[in-house]
């Protein structure tokens, strides 16, 4: 093929109204919904089937969870700001907000690991101690991996991937938009995880 791009790499498709990457990302998110949906269903089945601790008997800390929820929501906001800045052709600001998102995610992970996982494990609440903890570690762990994946992608766009901005700012901005979509989804998962594990 010559050096031209595939159709709809940049310009939206008339029917779907999306460029290829965005459409692909939505499909990917559909599969992610099925993944977390399956795990939530598993949680419900285990909870109705087994002897789960009632509310208040487990030792998850609502304040810590709430702080982390707050951090993630903020990171969604900074993510939107980053995209908007690139869209408005302000890469300096865009990079700043992207960096902010990375830092917030790291804070989330740090709190999660340092003040939650390690504490729980120290108290003997390991995954094999009870299916409640098993599914808790499993789902929040998987969510944490999604956060980590997002961080890696964002760091890529901040460092080696930033070259694309100079070559093709529109394509770069599109990628940031996709990253943002993914990021909102990951946040949304947490918005479900938090009440399910901490409050119910």
């Amino acid at each position: 093929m010559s050096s031209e791009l595939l159709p709809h790499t940049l310009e939206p498709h008339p029917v779907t109204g999306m460029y290829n990457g965005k459409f692909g990302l939505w499909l990917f998110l559909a599969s992610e919904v099925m993944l977390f949906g399956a795990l939530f269903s598993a949680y419900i089945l285990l909870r109705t089937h087994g002897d789960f601790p009632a509310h208040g008997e487990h030792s998850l800390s609502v304040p810590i969870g709430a702080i982390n929820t707050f951090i993630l929501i903020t990171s969604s906001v900074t993510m939107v700001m980053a995209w908007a800045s690139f869209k408005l052709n302000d890469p300096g600001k865009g990079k700043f907000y992207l960096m902010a998102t990375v830092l917030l995610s790291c804070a989330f992970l740090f709190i999660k690991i340092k003040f939650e996982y390690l504490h729980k494990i120290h108290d003997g609440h390991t995954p094999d101690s009870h299916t409640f903890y098993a599914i808790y570690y499993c789902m929040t762990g998987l969510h944490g991996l999604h956060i980590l994946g997002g961080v890696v992608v964002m760091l890529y766009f901040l460092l080696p991937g930033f070259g694309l901005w100079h070559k093709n700012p529109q394509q770069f901005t599109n990628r940031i938009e996709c990253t943002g979509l993914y990021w909102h989804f990951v946040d949304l998962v947490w918005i479900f995880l938090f009440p399910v594990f901490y409050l119910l």
Partner: protein
Amino acid sequence: MSSDHHAHNPGFISKYVFSVDHKVIGVQYTITSLLFLFFGFTLMMIMRWQLAYPGESIPLVGGWLGQYLVDNNGVLLPEGYNALGAMHGTIMVFLGVVPLAVGGFGNYVMPLQIGAPDMAFPKLNMASYWVYFLGGVTMLSSFFVPGGAANSGWTAYPPLSDIANTVGTHPFWNGQTIWLLAMVLLITSSLLGSVNFIVTIVHLRVKGLTMFRLPFFVWAQFVTSFLLLLAFPPLEAAGVLQLMDRVFDTSFFIPSGLVVSGVVQDQYSGGGSPLLWQHLFWFLAHPEVYVLILPAIGIVGEIIANNTRRPLWGYKTLVYSVIFLGFMSFVVWAHHMFLTGMGTKMSTFFQTTTMIISIPSVVILTAMLLSLWQASIRFTVPMLFALSFLPMFAIGGLTGLPLGLSAADIQLHDTYYVIGHFHYVVAPGTIMALLGGIYFWFPKVTGRKMSTMLGHLHFWPSFIFMNTIFFPMFMVGLAGVSRRLWDQTEYVQGVDVQSWVRMSSWGAWGLGLAQLPFIINFFYSAFAGKKVGANPWNATTLEWAAPSPPPHGNFAEVPVAYRGPYEYSVPDAKEDFHPQHVPDSQVV
């Protein structure tokens, strides 16, 4: 996207190994999956020896199989039998048929049929292949770790799979754990692939190619991709849970109070549910059945239209049926679980949905059969395979009925009847269709035709042996012989049907031999077959508008679609085919 490293002369590695061209990737998928199919089949040829001649040393290969599979005399061990069975199922389904039907045919043919220069995400496409490859290698490596490969069936039901391969093995590098890791890789590969397929089909169709002008094969791939996209994640979730059970001793699938070999399993907290796995597994695995069959139906549709020289009957009906099948396949899964203690309400629901899903299958088959009416049938080699698909798929489909009626399933569940049923769908069905597809598109890929004589030598014995293998299984199953038995002659029912069992086995070895002409044909024709032009079959769809083999970027000039996919024998025309890309002014 792919432009940068193709501008200058690409090296061998980036052209053939880490290629981003959908055609090269398609060929890579095809070759790899054919090798896996052959390997999975070899495992079964070994198992068939033990079934035909229980407790006798395996000839030829018995001494080579190693301590986890055979004893000192080269007799297959029961746990070896279980390992081969589990690996046969897994390899055939996840490393053989799906990668061939979707990764191979889908990748190669689909973009050509929609007139696209490539898949929407070429690099992602390459990643899918290599993740698949890695998954395959991982899966195979489990034969060599202490304790051998996974042996809890391709369904991997816990608690058996949770506790399997744990004694005298590495805590992590053992059969079942590797199986799970490999599955996660294979699922990831399929997910990447299906996103790519859907975006490509929706976004990259050429001008004029509306959804209802798409070749039926593309529709089949489209629905298949949705099934992969939505059904696989729950299995991935289940795989992660089982991995945690095995590695961290969690109890997702472990109920309280388990005692294995007299030892209380108190490393587990208990409180889990073995049935949770089955629900998650079959939520994938029933749609998976349609993933195995839909691309094959698509291929058969293409071949039939081309060789009957008339439009496929009821194109729209076919498309709607396939879409309906896709939807319904998500609500029938528990027909695999009738005997897990299900009450009347649940069973009524699932047997009703199962009966409903049989209707579109009947419609599809009927449409294909009606396409033969008033046709002008050419018995080319691909057509032979496609035609043989129809009755054998019918047998496979029909024998699903008694299994879907929960009362009849009481007697038939987990017997050889089930094995016969689904193999008629996937082996005499899908495999024959896929082979036909290889004969059909071979000229496009290589620019050469496969030998017809060798094709006949391949087809007829394969057709006969397929039935020799699988038909007796219905009788064996009805007689009450359970599946997955190392030695069915432990039961008097098994002794009674031993001659049927032997017949199956000899059929399997015969089928193995019958593939020799194919292998010879494949390699011979690739290098020395008769050269052909762009459209050797006088076909209508867009892939035949590209040169054979198509260059990088596929079409010399971007085609435009002027009509539906199967305009054969249009009245009052000179030629009996009107290719999609030729404007009206030039066809009459």
